């Protein structure tokens, strides 16, 4: 069965400091991994996906198949990065659904 683990429920960093949100997964095939974000009073939205290999709002995430990880990183956190972040995993190509982790709440302090 596929599973996504986000070991940190809460993460607090100072503005300008690096931030890293951990995500580990268990899946026997070739997964697709995603990060979703929910800002205060806003809808959950896609932040980035590993296949696009892009940087969004300064965030990057690298899929490490050896360590089955997909950690989200930003070198210099900003106050507007304060949000709930979810790591998500897709299943087989004929599967329609995403499995989400428990989420990490990030607070960036001034």
């Amino acid at each position, binding site marked *: 069965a596929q599973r*996504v683990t*986000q070991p940190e*429920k809460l993460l607090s960093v100072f503005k300008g400091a690096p931030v890293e949100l951990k995500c580990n997964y268990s899946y026997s095939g070739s997964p*697709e991994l*995603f990060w*979703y974000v929910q800002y205060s009073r806003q*809808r*959950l*939205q*896609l932040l980035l*996906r590993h296949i696009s290999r892009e940087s969004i709002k300064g965030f990057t995430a690298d899929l490490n198949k050896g360590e089955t990880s997909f950690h989200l990183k930003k070198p210099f956190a900003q106050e507007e990065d304060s949000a709930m972040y*979810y790591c*998500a995993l*897709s299943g087989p*190509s*004929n599967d*329609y*659904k*995403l*499995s*989400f*982790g*428990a*989420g990490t709440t990030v607070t960036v302090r001034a």
Partner: protein
Amino acid sequence: DVKVTQSSRYLVKRTGEKVFLECVQDMDHENMFWYRQDPGLGLRLIYFSYDVKMKEKGDIPEGYSVSREKKERFSLILESASTNQTSMYLCASSLETGDYGYTFGSGTRLTVV
């Protein structure tokens, strides 16, 4: 922009009531999903639908059912509400198979008393 609209932002229902949560999307998306969002548990999939009148169980379907009579509307039904179904319910849609860029609704906070 695709919009996913959930009919109620807040609902309070009594134990044993039958509860309907409605979700409508306006961009002809094939797939629709119902998740519940609980602190410390993240998002858990209740049911999803990949076509009109088609439905599939997610990870926690017990106590719930769904209906998709029209492509744009996906309803979640709590047959007999219980206090452990107090939660935030999120509806989402995606264009087609393999599209994991879900569009989420703003959620319905359901309290069962």
